[in-house]
């Protein structure tokens, strides 16, 4: 930014403005990915019982759950299956892809829908209506000055990174 050269004597406001930078493509994409991760998450908050570990009142899995099944002899702890399984979803996808490649069949990955042919519509990140303007610093959208102010005060990425 060119302003910085003029502010040798130092105005606090201009220094602030100088720090505010235009967020590059990489971190814009990273923000999008983070948003998508939040949308895919099962829970947003932490396990409310997580701090119970040291407590004597900790719920015992075996006591609490009705694990009794048909014949008690063959009954197994749920952890047994988890330990036996021990696979991450990405690992499963990869195995599926390999198997599909060898046998020439369709795999999970082949079914994913292609990209859309239509241009994206744009919505105000603040109020959700159609938007016409883009935040110069971070690339999010807003529709009015009011929403712009809200955006600048809240989710704009100009100060981060």
């Amino acid at each position, binding site marked *: 930014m060119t302003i910085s050269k003029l502010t040798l004597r130092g105005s606090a406001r201009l220094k602030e403005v100088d720090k505010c930078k235009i967020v590059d493509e990489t971190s814009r994409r990273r923000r999008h990915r983070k948003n998508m991760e939040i949308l895919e998450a099962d829970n947003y908050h932490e396990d409310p019982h997580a701090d119970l570990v040291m407590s004597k009142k900790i719920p015992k899995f075996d006591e609490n759950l*009705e694990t009794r*099944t048909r014949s008690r002899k*063959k009954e*197994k702890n749920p952890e047994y299956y988890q330990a036996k399984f021990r696979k991450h979803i990405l690992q499963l996808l990869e195995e599926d892809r390999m198997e599909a490649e060898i046998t020439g*069949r369709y795999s999970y*990955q082949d079914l994913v*829908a292609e990209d859309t042919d239509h241009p994206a519509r744009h919505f105000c990140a603040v109020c*959700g209506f159609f938007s016409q303007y883009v935040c110069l610093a971070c690339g999010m959208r807003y529709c009015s000055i009011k929403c712009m102010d809200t955006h600048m005060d809240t989710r704009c990425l100009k100060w981060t990174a």
Partner: protein
Amino acid sequence: MFGTRKYSGEGFSTSRRDSQTTEFKPHMANRKYERHKSKRLKQDENPLPGTSRATKSKLRTEKIFNVPVYILDNGGYSAKVGLSTKDTANVVPNCIMKVKSERKRFFIGNQIDECLDLSGLYYLLPCEKGYVTKWNVQKPVWDYIFNNVCPIEENPVIMTQPPFNFKAIQEITDEIFFEEYEVKAIYRANPTDFAYYQYNCNAKGDKVPCIIIDTGFSFTHVIPYIDGKKYYKAAKRIDIGGKLLTNYLKDIISYRQLHVMDETYIINQVKEDSCYVSLDFKEDMKIAGLQGESNTIIRNYVLPDFNNIRRGYVQKPEDSSVPEGCQILRLNNERFTVPELLFHPSDIGMDTMGIAEAVVKCIFNCPEKYQSQLAQNIIVMGGNASFEGFGERLYKEVRSYLPDHWKVNVYKPENPITYAWLGAKSMSEDPKIKSLLVTKEQYEEHGPHFTYERFSDWLQAKKEDLDSSPMVEVKPTTESVLLKANFSRKDLFGKYDPDLEENSNNEQKSEILDTGFSVFTNPNESKNITDDTSRSSKSSDIISEGASQSVSSDSANKNLDSEVFICNTDENSSCTNAYPSGLNMLDTYDFDIFNQGFV
């Protein structure tokens, strides 16, 4: 409607005590006894023949098996379970829940009904991306269902599984059902298979070609059926489901008015109660932008306080009085922009196509002679189909894409959630089910591989000829891992780095080597080069230099994995970073961004 308002302070304590003491123990103690008894009483135990249909179906299944069939539609969020003699399925949450207020116990499945304060509900879900991976959650839920919700006796089991249910998952399922529950026989198929069967029962012809859209909690499948089989070449999956919609609604409400990020359960109810699919999106947007009376979309949603109100509700538009001490959400365009994601995933920056577009693409990917018939038989099922206006919107959009003289017909069953279960029920009355089941003896004789092959119809779905179907292509390992996580190479490596670029992608590399120079053939990548032109020109020299060296070694290594690369010159060695496998590359990703992303 709100009978639950009567909960007084005292009612609280008693019912809570009850809920804790109701441990199902006596029932469990008699379990063994009951099993023996039930053999004798089986005829009497069947529910009273309320409708003639129930009797008929009972008679029919009894003819085949002597016992009703146990049907389990194991969804990502809710399991639909019941015996084939019942008219409808029991819908049970397929998860374990924890609450803040009750620290001593978990709530499995529909035990959650006993819980009084549902705020801050924490989910343990058995599925990831729609596939069961957390067996320490799934197993207790199944135990609970099979013991308490709908006790299983000597019944054969029909259950659902998602398409491409992976081998490891099916093996564990087999082990649980055959070895632990000692089920006599089992049949597994995709929910859409059962829906197809059900639809064909009601349709006039046999093996009607149709498209089934299953839009559930984890994802949405669009699957065409031709000649009674799935046509995999045109099938599509859109990674948008009810979970994403709920999370999106949660996110925008938290940003705009009230912090509800922790309240997935409540917001899910908000979504179910108030959201609808808009028939004319632009028009609805306009209405939602209006002030005062003319805005017919805006609604107040009264949130539950778990004292007087147990379940939130949408206030009638004319009723503007706020119940005392209640929190209110004001829902305006949220009501229709959230389900809109199903039709336009690009609204939140996803590149995939929406449902309507996928249906149309799917039709046109099918053989031509079936296309118009497919358009006449579009079936929607799954939880998201329950949104008001879903079927109409789908019809409207698909109609606008297809030729005028084709008939388009979208069928939405009465209850889209239990449609697969109903299909399985009808299938259990079909004599041919006997040949589909795998018995315990067969499992013990042939092992899990046998069941896997029997129940996985995608194993037969061979790609006919690769070059005639352009959408299908086999990708090298590294790239496919990138795709999975929606990364591009640029994300992984931040700034352009010709050496890594070359190493990370074998295809790219061979291209460079063939031409001997011109590193920046790809215009997208040349954009990233900022001020290190001197460096890149230097390294392009390195590459062309190293090219002659590595061509020979490269051709020798062609059969190796694509991760293997060759270090060309000693100058490269500083930035050469061995990525032994695709997954490791993912691990290093964040780190790289931080180092190189912003300077």
